[in-house]
């Protein structure tokens, strides 16, 4: 097609042709890369340096670990040639990386295909919609290649060097690695396209955030407690791993028609100069990967357009008149509350409704098994058994097991609720103006925000302590003292988190993970450590003091803890309040 543009004649590919598709895709991709470059260049020099240092700090250890895996795997196979697993390892490396990419691909595809802010602009632009889909599908491709560069490349290189593979191995590894992200991205996109036909994309994103948190939590809990589940079989004296059984399992896995395993076999053949084996393996890989990806692009136009159109009209179509009438008649607490309570009630409704936000609260639960099993000596051989440790020194005034449980309850409840306190202002996001313009005093705002974090803390910690008291049969006085200590230190730590959260809020975020400012986390951790250790030490004075000092310890201990907790809370809140009026100024 010949077109006139600004007085000159240019040749453009026919709309709908492969040339137009590739041209439009390239245009959209270069636009995105330009935005990325601009974002980086418009950061301050310090922020750029920190970004580079942070990336290197992340990439170097992972790269070193990957290189170690490749080298160690090669050494193992050379040391035990009877295993005959040489051709499997490259495939295993590629499969692990492909699985990592697959896990992240659904979320990435959801964000780029349906939740990008530029979708409306692109969907009405005179570009091939398949190009929009393709460019959005390749949105996270740089990130995926970065993951491959850090996790797969060092392992494959060290493995190849260790096995003495020839240059063909390295030459063919390059297109294999370039093709590796395509299948996970295609699968993620297909999943998103199918889900978007049934559910609004934003709700899917929230559910996905919660699912990721629950998955991470489950993995962590299983990992932390694995020694208890596997102890009976693995821990037997004299038991040796069955290498032959392991080899059979690996061989049967390697026989699966996964493209990454097929490619791995091809690469191993290339390492030995076996051209036929290399051609068969890599051709199979290319056929499956590129074929599937091309299939995705071909079916995308209809599915993507349908999903996008659905998202545009994803209002609340089904409205119940009965529900409307009920809500109108039911004033509820929110309609009667004082200003601080109304602020807290508002937060308590909003946090669980945004599942991604709610998932943030689940993160700290990862620590709970560590605390309980390690602190209380739940059976691990190397665990710190606080009950035994303190029992050696402490007189019987306070139950050492009770102290350990109190520490566990305080830590668990604080870990969850500091998240609410530290992000109390940040969670307001673009709606901060509503509070800033309202006739409320800074004191009311702080009380409301404090209540929204302290309320769940008080309930959670009290319930846990009551359960522990019933379970372990603590004395009422001991339980009361423990409750006092937990509430005192917890209240102070939450106040500190709120104060620091007011000083360094982040109102501009897309993902709730971005609500957390590094300074808030650092300052809160410091405050927690100081108040927790020193305040906890004060509270434990009666347990460790000689009998003749018992009365003094019972006075100085709680009093010292109260003074420290009050100072910590007051200092951080005053610090935060002094900057409250600056929030949202820019």
């Amino acid at each position, binding site marked *: 097609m010949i077109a006139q543009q600004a007085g000159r004649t240019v040749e453009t590919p026919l709309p709908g042709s492969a040339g137009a598709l590739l041209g439009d895709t390239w245009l959209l991709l270069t636009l995105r890369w330009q935005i990325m470059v601009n974002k980086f260049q418009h950061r301050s020099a310090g922020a750029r340096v920190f970004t580079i240092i942070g990336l290197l700090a992340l990439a170097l250890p992972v790269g070193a670990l990957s290189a170690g895996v490749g080298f160690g795997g090669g050494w193992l196979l050379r040391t035990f040639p009877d295993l005959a697993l040489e051709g499997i390892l490259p495939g295993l490396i590629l499969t692990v990386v492909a699985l990592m990419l697959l896990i992240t691909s659904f979320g990435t595809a959801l964000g780029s295909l349906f939740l990008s802010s530029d979708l409306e602009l692109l969907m009405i632009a005179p570009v091939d919609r398949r190009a929009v889909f393709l460019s959005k599908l390749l949105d996270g491709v740089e990130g995926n290649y970065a993951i491959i560069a850090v996790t797969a490349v060092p392992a494959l290189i060290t493995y190849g060097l260790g096995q003495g593979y020839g240059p063909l191995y390295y030459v063919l590894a390059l297109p294999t690695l370039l093709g590796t992200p395509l299948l996970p991205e295609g699968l993620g996109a297909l999943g998103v396209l199918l889900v978007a036909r049934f559910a609004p994309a*934003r709700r899917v994103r929230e559910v996905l955030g919660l699912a990721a948190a629950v998955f991470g939590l489950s993995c962590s809990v299983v990992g932390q407690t694995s020694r208890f589940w596997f102890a009976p079989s693995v821990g037997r004296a004299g038991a040796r791993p069955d290498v032959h059984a392991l080899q059979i399992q690996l061989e049967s896995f390697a026989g699966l028609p996964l493209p990454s395993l097929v490619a791995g076999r091809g690469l191993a053949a290339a390492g030995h100069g076996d051209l036929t084996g290399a051609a068969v393996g890599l051709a199979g890989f290319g056929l499956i990967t590129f074929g599937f990806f091309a299939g995705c692009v071909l079916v995308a136009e209809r599915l993507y357009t349908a999903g996008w159109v659905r998202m545009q009209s994803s209002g609340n179509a089904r409205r119940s008149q009965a529900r409307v009438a009920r809500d109108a008649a039911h004033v509820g607490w929110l309609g009667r509350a004082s200003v601080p309570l109304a602020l807290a009630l508002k937060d308590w409704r909003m946090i669980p409704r945004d599942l991604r936000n709610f998932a943030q609260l689940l993160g700290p639960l990862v620590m709970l098994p560590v605390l309980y099993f390690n602190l209380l000596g739940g059976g691990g051989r190397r665990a710190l058994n606080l009950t035994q440790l303190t029992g050696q020194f402490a007189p019987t005034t306070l139950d050492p097991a009770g102290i350990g449980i109190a520490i566990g309850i305080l830590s668990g409840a604080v870990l969850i609720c500091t998240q609410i306190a530290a992000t109390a202002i940040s969670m307001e996001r673009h709606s901060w103006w509503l509070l800033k313009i309202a*006739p409320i005093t800074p004191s009311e705002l702080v009380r409301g925000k404090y209540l929204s974090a302290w309320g769940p803390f008080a309930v959670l910690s009290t319930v846990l302590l009551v359960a522990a008291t019933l379970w372990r049969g603590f004395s009422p006085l001991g339980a009361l003292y423990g409750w006092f200590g937990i509430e005192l230190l917890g209240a102070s730590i939450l106040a500190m988190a709120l104060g620091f959260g007011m000083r360094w809020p982040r109102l501009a975020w897309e993902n709730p993970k971005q609500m957390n400012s590094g300074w808030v986390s650092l300052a809160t951790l410091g405050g927690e450590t100081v108040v927790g250790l020193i305040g906890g030490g004060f509270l434990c004075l009666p347990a460790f003091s000689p009998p003749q000092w018992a009365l003094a310890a019972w006075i100085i201990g709680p009093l010292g803890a109260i003074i420290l907790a009050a100072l910590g809370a007051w200092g951080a809140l005053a610090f935060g309040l002094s900057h409250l009026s600056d929030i949202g100024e820019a």
Partner: protein
Amino acid sequence: MYSNGAAEGYMAGGRPPAIWAEGLRKVYGAHIAVQRVDLVVQPGEILGFLGPNGAGKTTTIKMLTGLIKPTEGRALIGGHDIQRDPVAAKSLLGYVPDTPNLYGKLSGWEFLRFMGRLYRVPTAQAEHRAGELLRLFDLTAAASDLIEGYSHGMQQKTALAGALVHDPKVLFLDEPTVGLDPKSARLIKDLLGQLRDQGTAVFLSTHILEIAERMCDRVVIIDKGTIIAAGTMAELRARGGQGSLEDIFLNLTGGAEYAAPAEVSA
């Protein structure tokens, strides 16, 4: 343009003006967003605040409502300094920004109840008022749904309902008709008239000059952070030439110079 003396004269009159601003200035680094703004708006008056994009309209509104601190100058709402006595000043005002940015995870009912509590409206009064506003803005059927599911126009109307729950004495509207259907836009125009009759001062920033011409008692035009014209339509015509407000606006802001070439090239 209002001089300081005129402003002082309004203050000395006994009844405080709804909005009084003197020497408002806002500087961001080397960029002067608002140079010097003096304003007086009386109760029951609708003031149209006009200006080209980037002229400093929203920055001025944000300084008047206490959302940002002025670099210099001060603003009073109902006689209360917005910076020194913010609670008293803010209790008198309502604000609807150009982009609503409400709490997406609250329902319409919950949002209005929350606003009622923030502005300390007695429960029964807030309930009655919220129900009335939901009906007025045709939001009753959607009131139990989360705001994030509302269209832009519905969110704009919800923001307006939230700003009216406490019956403000001063209402700031920043482009209130953007995204509204003709019926809702007409509703807002009617509402402005009712508010004026009730003695509410309305500070209306808009690009729709027809609304400003028809609804506003006075018009202030700001350009490059400085007020370049202010007065009734008759006073503006005397200064900016005969014709519609659009002609006057373009004459004063230099837009007329661009209009002719644009027509030729189109």
